[in-house]
């Protein structure tokens, strides 16, 4: 398959898409509306599925098709639908109210992206044979940045549901790291990870629902009963 298609062209597509994924991640860290946040996450997952598909075609790694399809079904379609339903059902106020305001969040995200590039540099330089995973290390840097920004978003949010979204976008960063470093994990591991993600979303959705019912709020910074 890869004799027909030029891998370098695929590499360019992947890098471009990865850049868009990063932009979406920063947008998610900065913006204030819950439903928009869920949709951005869905779009980001869709782009990741596209990246996985592109690598599968251009670099001759057919088992990545499976990962692409799973990402599309689970993270781009199923999880956003589930979360939007949850939002409808509990009828929460739509605003997110982060601890740190939007402009500063964007600045911090930028700094974390820089950190991502520095870390990925050290992994790549150590390794003269990039033959098995010759994707530009831009992708790895983006993956690490996604991971770090996901962490930051997680700390920055007070509401239960938005913390779940941050956790999921952090997971997206991990997925990008696996496909850019090693063309994905072995299929059975990948399946297990997807299964865990899906179950985790269900479990967390139930928790969010119960927290909302019990505390009459999703603000987890109000949960301060257990101390010491």
């Amino acid at each position, binding site marked *: 398959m890869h004799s027909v298609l030029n891998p370098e062209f695929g590499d360019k597509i992947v890098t471009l898409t990865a850049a868009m994924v990063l932009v979406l991640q920063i947008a998610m860290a900065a913006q204030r509306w819950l439903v928009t946040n869920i949709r951005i996450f869905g779009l980001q997952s869709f782009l990741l599925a596209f990246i996985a598909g592109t690598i599968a075609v251009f670099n001759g790694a057919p088992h990545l098709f499976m990962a692409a399809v799973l990402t599309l079904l689970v993270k781009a379609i199923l999880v956003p639908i589930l979360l939007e339903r949850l939002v409808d059902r509990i009828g929460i106020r739509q605003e997110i109210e982060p601890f740190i305001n939007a402009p500063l969040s964007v600045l911090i995200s930028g700094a974390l992206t820089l950190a991502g590039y520095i870390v990925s540099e*050290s*992994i790549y330089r*150590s*390794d003269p*044979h990039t033959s*098995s*995973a010759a994707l530009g290390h831009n992708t790895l840097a983006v993956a690490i940045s996604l*991971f770090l920004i996901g*962490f930051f978003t*997680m700390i920055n949010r007070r509401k*239960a549901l938005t*913390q779940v979204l941050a*956790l999921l976008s*952090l*997971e997206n960063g*991990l997925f990008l*790291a*696996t496909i850019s*470093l*090693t*063309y994905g*994990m*072995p*299929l*059975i*591991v990948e399946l*297990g*990870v997807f*299964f*865990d993600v899906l*179950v*985790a979303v269900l*479990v*967390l959705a139930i*928790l969010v629902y*119960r*927290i909302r*019912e*019990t*505390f009459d709020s999703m603000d*987890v910074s109000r*949960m301060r*009963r*257990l101390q*010491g």
Partner: protein
Amino acid sequence: MLLVALLIVPLAAAGLAYFARTRVAMEAVNLAAFTVILVVALLLGRQVLASGPVALWDGFFYADELSALVILLTASMAMVCSVYAVGYMREDERSGALASDDSGATANSKLRQYYALTPLFVFAMLLVTLANNLGVMWVAIEATTLASVFLVMFYGKVTSLEAAWKYAIIGGVGLSMALFGTVLAYYSAHNLAGSETLAGLNWSVLASHAAQLDKTTMRLAFILALLGYGTKAGLAPMHTWKPDAYSEAPVPAAAILSTAMLNCALYGLVRFYILSTRCLGPDFAGGLLITFGILSMGVSAPFVLVQRNYRRLLAYHTIDHAGIMATALGVGGALGSLALMLHMTFHTVAKGLLFLCAGNVSQHFKTDLFRKIKGGVIQAMPVTGVIFLMAILAIIGMPPFSLFQSEFLIVRAALAGGHSVASVLFIVFGMGVFAGALIHIGSLVLGPSDGAPAAEWHPWRNTPMLFLAAVLVVIGFWLPAPLLALIRGAARVVTGE
């Protein structure tokens, strides 16, 4: 065959318990399943001792002495707790604690939740120890969290929700780091031939080629795995979920969380430690583990000293012991590894026993707070009181109990390895925990009675407690030869002799 049985039986039990109609049927399914699992675990231990590691399906499942030891401890605790749970849940049903939930769940559906989730939880823990593939191991450790979240929020109170939320989110974030570590471990082997197959992520394959793994990547992989599985083991500063989860879960589930699940998280750490030492030498991983271990001991000591709730006290005590075991692993070498395996075994028995005692006290006095029980546990419930006191003496490391031996061994190994600062801190923090636990539990048990009524004899709850107490006394003086051989074998897996 044995390996498949270990996985099929708990899964089947979870399914059967879910569809069982009556309480007695659910109890019977759990008791039968955990008895079978314990027997299979013993058989597996025997086979591993007789003929070395057992593998199945091209090494997809793999059990060496280390796995066999952790499986044996998990199966024993699951068995003991399933007997205890019968009495505990019946008492909860009688006192109305199960129906007090405001979500409208009936007592029967609560029981179903407990008896179906516990085998699922045990299944995930057994999968952790049987999976050779590091990716599958990660999936299984994540599954232990998912299976136990609803056990933590079992009572549906405001505080249970808070505890479950912290547990799920902190666990989720921590484990995502461990997944990153696993990916990097996979990547560190990509120069080797055949690394892009399923077996390329097998621990046994990585361990035998560890010297050729990429060093920088391995270093990062170990740090991430330590943070991730360390969160699951409750090492400071990632320990904050632990006291909440242990004090909110039903007591038999809390006992499993603080013994078997701690062992499983440490098991994950040990596997990465072995890869890291064979690739980078012992100093890198050792130094990190000792730092986190001593920090955990230091963080838990003040909380034990000023604690107001005896179940939270036990939780901080588990953080202390997670730190002790991480330190033992970090010290490493033949002596440190042996001390780790001994301590893991002894801690499982003693901590399990403590939780069962705390459960008895909690159900009799209807509170977990020291200030509401002035004392007099020994008058109201003499058997539980005496055993509680004995177990607390054992776990803080009083001779002649066995934990004294293992902690002494750890300090000796640390001094021999030149970790003098760590040894001094180990002893200082150990003393803090010693004093705190002894004062609190001592006054709880021996303090003046405020005339609480005497407890009746509860066979379902007292028999497992008496059994564990007997085990605790016996292993202080004598370890059965096969168990000792298994412990030594597990230590040899770590040192790689």
